[in-house]
Each structure stands twice: as structure tokens, then as C-alpha cells.
């Protein structure tokens, strides 16, 4: 079964009188343990595609099926639960909770509703942070961490609830090449070891070698 299926997804924004087509009849399928790189210039619709796949935006037209669930018909409430249980996000701007430690930033996902106990959540958070090379940072606040460390905490948060699909927006844009490659390698190993599918947005062609497949997007139109 495919982790993600977009069929003829269209997304338009209206700004003033003009209609901006951010995504034009996008059709895409991502396998259940596939890593897909999505590349394209700024403003081409990458974040829009990711947001629609993760239930943050609803498409103007078309259907979005994630792990067999058609989320294009979901209510806001259903989408909240879907985001909590079925997808992991890493945002373009790292958005950690400033007054929570690295460990707590992971565990908070568990607090929103999960069958996992507090103790198990703590153990999982610590294991993830350890794998991400942050075992010495578990009790640090985001303000006490470097940009790369924060990025890795955000990746840990995305993986916390064992989602079937991880959506990562520009994981390396704020990092230098070396750190960017390290973070990419981490993402790949985390995702591959968990049989999770991932869509990774980047505008850096060098990062595509970490992916199983690369899709290009230009002005809202996908091309293999």
C-alpha cells in the first residue's frame, strides 16, 4: 500500500483579485518505505504540496490519501487527530516550544493523546535523541542549542509518534553543507530503520542523492 497518493490535486490562493495556482493537478505516489526528494525553485509549491499531504491545508480540488485514509474529506477535528497520529512534520522554520527541554519537546506529542505511557514516551524520546546524537542535550532548552541541534530535535519530534509518513521541509537550508549532509544522513537512517515513508523538500540538488527518487516541481507542476 502507498504511504501517500495525491490525485489531480489543485491548490489556489486568492490574493486580492488575482488567483495564484500554487499546485496544479499534482499526481504523486510515495511507497510505504520510500524516500522522495522534492526539488524546485522558491515559490514553486513545495511547501504547499507538503502541507496538503500532511493535513495542514485542504486541497481546492483532487484527493489526498495517506496510508489508505482519504483525508481530503476530513473535518478540522479529524485532521487534528490525523496530524497527531499519522504524520510527522519538520517545518521549514524550526518551531520548538521555547520553554521545554529537548526531551520535553518530543514528549509533548505524546501528551496530546497517545496510548503510550509517560514512562514509555520518555524512554522513546531519549532513544530518538540518542540516535540523533543529542544525548548530551536532552535537558537543554532550544535557546541553549545550535541551529543544527534544534533541527535534529525537530526531526526527533516528527518521529516521536511512529508516523507512517514523515514530511520534511528544507531540513538543511539553515545549515552548512557538512552539517546539512549529516542531518540528511540521520533522516535517511531514521526513516529507513523504521519502514517509514518520507517526502523531503529541498532546493539543493546535492541532497537528492540521499533519496530513492527525486521529483521536480516548477510553478506548481510536478515532473519526474
Amino acid at each position, binding site marked *: 500500500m502507498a504511504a501517500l497518493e495525491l490525485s489531480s490535486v489543485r491548490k489556489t490562493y486568492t490574493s486580492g483579485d488575482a488567483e495564484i495556482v500554487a499546485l496544479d493537478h499534482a499526481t504523486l505516489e510515495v511507497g510505504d518505505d520510500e524516500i522522495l526528494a522534492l526539488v524546485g525553485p522558491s515559490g514553486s509549491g513545495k*511547501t504547499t504540496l*507538503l*502541507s496538503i499531504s500532511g493535513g*495542514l*491545508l485542504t486541497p481546492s480540488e483532487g484527493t489526498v490519501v495517506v496510508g489508505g485514509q482519504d483525508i481530503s474529506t476530513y473535518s478540522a*477535528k479529524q*485532521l*487534528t*487527530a490525523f*496530524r*497527531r*497520529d499519522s504524520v510527522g*512534520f519538520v*517545518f*521549514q*522554520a524550526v*518551531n520548538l*516550544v*521555547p*520553554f*521545554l527541554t529537548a526531551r*520535553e519537546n518530543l514528549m*509533548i*506529542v505524546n*501528551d*496530546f*493523546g497517545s496510548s503510550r505511557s509517560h514512562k514509555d514516551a520518555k524512554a522513546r524520546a531519549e532513544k530518538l535523541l540518542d540516535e540523533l546524537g543529542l544525548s548530551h542535550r536532552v535537558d537543554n532548552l532550544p535557546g541553549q542549542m545550535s541551529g543544527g541541534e534544534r533541527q535534529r530535535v525537530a526531526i526527533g*519530534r516528527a518521529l516521536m*509518534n511512529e508516523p507512517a509518513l514523515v514530511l520534511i*521541509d528544507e531540513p538543511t537550508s539553515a545549515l552548512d553543507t557538512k552539517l546539512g549532509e549529516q542531518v540528511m544522513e540521520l533522516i535517511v537512517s531514521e526513516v529507513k530503520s523504521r519502514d517509514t515513508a518520507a517526502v523531503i523538500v529541498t532546493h539543493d540538488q546535492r541532497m537528492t542523492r540521499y533519496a530513492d527518487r527525486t521529483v521536480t516541481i516548477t510553478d506548481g507542476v510536478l515532473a519526474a
Partner: protein
Amino acid sequence: MKLGLVELRRKPLRFAIAGSSLVLLSVLLLFLGGLLDGLFIGSTGLLRSQPGELVVYSSDAKDSLIRSRIDPEVRAKVEAVPGVSATGGIGVALVGGQLPDKTDLVNLSVTAFQLPVSSMPSDVSLAPDQALADRSLQAFGVDVGDTLLVGSAKTPITVTGWVSDTDYLQQGGFFVQPDTWREVLADSRPDSNLPPDTFQGLTVKLDSGADATTVADAIDAATGGATSTLTKSEAVQALPGIKEQNSTFSAIIYVTLFVAGLVVALFFALLTLERIGLYSVLKAIGASSRQIFGGVVIQAVIVALVSFVIGGVLMWLLTLVLPAEIPVAMEPARAVQIAVGLVVMSALGAAVSLRRVVRVDPASAIG
């Protein structure tokens, strides 16, 4: 929700403005409530401490002891009413008393009693020059063994023990034999020369099972309308100023609670505005509006409770330095009322931000 609690613990200063406003409002509320209770206690103790369920005045007295007269004839009619088990004469004289080596007068309500009031031993007996003083007089320097010069004739009367919560119209309870009271009253108010066995009012004990209002009506009927008989709580409410005091202070207290709600509403509205970015991220990773809103309300409630406790401590310190003339009483029931009022108003105040929390768009976390 946990996130709200963690934020409170880690970033307490963020709540300092709302907290300190609520501390000040708590002190104000406790002070107003304490003053209301203190005035009530100081005005009504004499009536509330009476052993009988009913109070009998003469009908021309407009339910005031000072204007009332009950002679032995009327009293005999009262005692004959079925349901009445015992009556005791009451009389009061509001006079000054002078302590040895002091020039200031202490305000006394020299009170005649025949049935012991609630804080007296049942076998109480006093000589004509002896009195039991209310403990509230301690604050004015009165002590057991002191001999006070009472009233305009400066009758020497010695305090032999204490009673409590017996003050009347803000004057300290000073319990004496009926004849001593008549003497003090006649000296201070020459027009009030009462014959022996005449009192101002009666406290009426009822047979067990007798209905207070039924017996009260029967008493007034038996005396041919010469009496006005009230239950103890009616008599308390009929005291001059009690109702007005209560409604005035209650109105100020409710307005202050409303202001507390506004402070919380304004503060959390600003805080929510500041946190829209955070909330959109939380929603994007699966937090529901309900969970986020729950956190806001819990923060408001905890800020209110902590502020109330700090305000309570400040109020307690304040009572230590307040002069005895300001009758502030700290009643647990009043503290509970104010705490509940603050918590409810804070929760309602925080609820004003509900709409804004609900409208936070998770998609704005993308940026």
C-alpha cells in the same frame, strides 16, 4: 494541560503583571469582606449570642432594644403562650468606661442578662459590682481584674471574666446584673429610669419541636399587639444599618470580582495574541483547540489561586498592624467565597480568549 503548568513553573515572571494585580485585588477583597464581617460581628453579637430562639420587643420600639420596654405584666403574658419554655430579660446601655490610669474612654454596651449567653458558663453568678467583658475589649487594654468607671456616674465595676462575640452596635459587650444595668442606664440617661423587673427585651426559649414563627405570632396575639416578636436572625437583620451595610459591601465586592475577571481577560487576551505562533505549531503537530484552551484556563486558575494565597498572607500581616478601631474580621467562609469568586472570574476571563484559540490556523505553522 501539562504544557500550561510547565510554562507557569519555568516562566513565572511572564505572569507577574496579572499575578500582582490579582494579589492587590485579593487584598482589597479580603479587606472589604473582613470589614463587612467585622462590622456585622461587632453590631450583632449581643443578639446572636442570646440563648433563646426569639427576641421580644415592645411594638412601639421599631425593633430596637434601646427604645423597647417590657414590663412584668407583658412578660407574664409571653410566658403563658404555649411553646414558650423560658424567657430572660435583656437590657443594654451604650456608655463609656474608663480604665485605671487611662484617660481614653472605652465604648461599652453594658448588658443585662438573666439567661446566660452562649459563651458563659451556665452557673454564672455576678456581684452587683462585677462584669464579664467581651474579649474584643482586650484590644483596648481591658483585662480581668480591672475596675472600670462606667457611665456618667463613674460606677466602679470589676471585670471578673470573659465572654466572646457579644458586642452591640460596635460597643464591647459588658455583662452585668439587671440591677447594675438599670443603675448605669438611669445615671447616663435620666429619662430612662426603669422600674425593677422591667427590661428592654426578652429572649425566649422554645419547647423542643415548637415552630419559631408560629410561637412568635402567638406571643404578639397574646399580648394584644403590645409586642413585636422576631426570630433571632430577623432581629439581627432589623438592627440599624445591617441590611444597608451588607448590600453596599456586597456590591463593592462583586464589582471588584468583576474587575479581577477583566484583568485576567485582558492579560490572557494579550498573552494569547503573543502565542499564536506557538499555538499554530502545537495544532500542526496534533494538539486540539480544547487542549490548548484547557491549558490557558488552568494557567488563569492557578495564577488566581496563588495570587489569592499571597494576598491572604499580606492581609493577615495587615491585620497585625491595623488599629483596633477598624473592625476587620477574618472569617473562613468569607475567604472561601472570595477564593471561589476569584477562580470563577479568572476562568471566565480566560474563556474570553477561547475564540482566538479556536481560530488559530495550524497551516500558519508552515511559514
